[in-house]
């Protein structure tokens, strides 16, 4: 695609936005050429979009695995390295091991899910981005790239479907 331009189409409601996505497909854009930005999470099927891929749960599971390993180390590794004999108590007890392993597993799961959200979303990111504050006021925006010479065609097509505005957008400081 030579001389591409990035446009932002603003919609008031789901219905015209889903038709807008469909129209962009008809006009030759792939799903990868567009992104929907909204003030609330919108189920991908509502707009006819493929589901976004997320690695958060996998990163979380990795954290859970590391957590359980840490828990086992704390409850069994430490007494192995520095045995502390307390009147008749076993050095490697199972029930206490379950408690510490459980807490560390959950901490690992949630901590890494939190980190995973950061990593997968590229947070924090303070570089300029294509955005307009109207989105957090409830508008649904479709951000897409198209050939510059076809700008008018895309604008007209989306406005006809109910887009409130379709205009070129440049990255700005949020």
């Amino acid at each position, binding site marked *: 695609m030579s001389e591409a331009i990035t446009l932002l189409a603003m919609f008031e409601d789901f219905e015209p936005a889903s038709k807008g996505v469909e129209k962009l497909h008809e006009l030759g854009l792939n799903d990868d050429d567009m*992104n*929907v*930005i*909204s*003030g*609330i*999470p*919108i*189920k*991908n099927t509502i707009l006819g*979009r493929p*589901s*976004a*891929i*997320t690695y*958060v*749960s996998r990163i*979380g599971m990795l954290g859970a695995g590391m957590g359980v390993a840490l828990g086992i180390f*704390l*409850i069994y590794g*430490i*007494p192995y*390295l*520095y045995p*502390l004999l*307390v009147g008749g*108590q076993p050095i490697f*007890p199972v029930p*206490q091991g379950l*408690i*510490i392993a*459980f*807490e*560390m597993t*959950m*901490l690992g*799961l*949630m*901590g890494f*899910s*939190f980190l*995973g*959200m*950061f990593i*997968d*979303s*590229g*947070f*924090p*990111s*303070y*570089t300029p*981005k294509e*955005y307009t*504050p109207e*989105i*957090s*006021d*409830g508008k649904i925006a479709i951000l897409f790239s198209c050939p510059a010479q076809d700008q008018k065609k895309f604008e007209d097509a989306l406005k006809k479907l109910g887009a409130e505005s379709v205009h070129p957008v440049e990255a700005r400081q*949020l």
Partner: protein
Amino acid sequence: MATYAKPLARPKQHAEEEHEENPREHLMHDPLPRGQMNAMVMESMNETNPLFWVITAVLAVIVLFALGYEWSVLILQGQGTAGVTRPDYWGVFLVNTVFWIGISHAGTFISAILRVLKIESRRPFTRAAELMTTFGLVQAGLSIFMHLGRVWLVYWMFPIPNERTIWPDFHSPLMWDLMAITTYLLSSTMYLFLPLIPDLAMARDRTEGGWKKIFYKILALGFRGTEGEWKNLTTAMNIFAFAIIPVMFSVHTIVSWDFAMATRPGWSSTVFGPYFVIGALHSGMAAVAIVLFLLRSTMKHYKYFIRPEHFNTMGMLMLLVSMAWAYFYFNDYIVPWYGGDKWDKLVQEYTEKGPLAYLWFTMLIVNIVIPWATLWNKKWRETPWLLAIVGLLINVGMYIERYLIIPVGVTINRMPFTWRQYYPRIEIPMTIGTFALFLLLYMLASRLIPLIPVWEVQEGQEAHMIRKMGKAEISTLSDME
């Protein structure tokens, strides 16, 4: 042909019932444009009257006195300045710890369990409850440090080699406590932050310049609301919602094991785990009712977001939890009573007939009788001030319950020559300090972060519809998640 029917309601009664059930009075069926809701929440954060700052200043002074001056005295002069001595080495500081951990349970319950169960009326007050979790745990953590005395030696509990060449003993319930409370504090703070990101982005978009703009810009992390960002955020929130529930149960169970693992009369009980968890929910739910009342009364526009229906939901939960608490309490009471162990009997008799018997009766009245006598009635449940008063009384009752378990519990032991009545001393101002700090943090948070999760409210409003069925209008919910 004659027909038999039960007497029907009079037309007037019928009209009243219809009015009560009007779904359009519910927040989910009374939507406003998102921009307007954003503006309302921002206005409530930015408009502050002088009384707010007066109260803030008074709380700050109390915190400085109680947690600055008094704590310094405790550290410099030692635990002798507190009322703890043989046999009451566990006093009000630990009562406060258990109490504040209990308060912290409400946030997780409201936010996580109601989210998992998709109970829609949770939407406007999840954040207010989540904040209680984080701020409550801060007070619980401080209270443990107060009890610790020599706070500078806290690193002895960390798994790092120290000069004694002894590592912490993870076989001790106190170490389980450290692990569980740390896990809960970290995870609940992360869980508070996740759904806050879109609202911080909203605040960033609506703030013009100044330090607040920078504050929101940093905390919003560059969030725009792209499909990928929402997917990652909702996935993480779902993981947290499911994972934090067993952690919540584990925390107060482990707190109960601090007591139950000791073979001490009155403490060594197998039912202590669930009994403590339900007690935590009892005080926590009641505290949420108080917070909702205060927010609705003091924050501009909050009457739109927090409505009688939400107090009704809270009231029902409080009634349910009160019944569950009564069940567990009776269970914990009847077994030692029936068993007839000499020392258990002595503890029970001291609690019921001793010098603090009035506390025991007060606890039963405010934890059971008052909630059951009031919360069965929907109109009363929907009356914010009444629910707040019931909530306050329940919290008084739950504080008494912890007091009866801890310092009163250790008073009666198997060595009668050590029996001694415990009188808190420096503990009293320091306890007031934790309450003041909790309120102060809450008041400051109300000016800095949107206490209403606006995007969650809008999401709920988009999912709700009113459908006509016959002559009635019925609320329906679409699965949009």
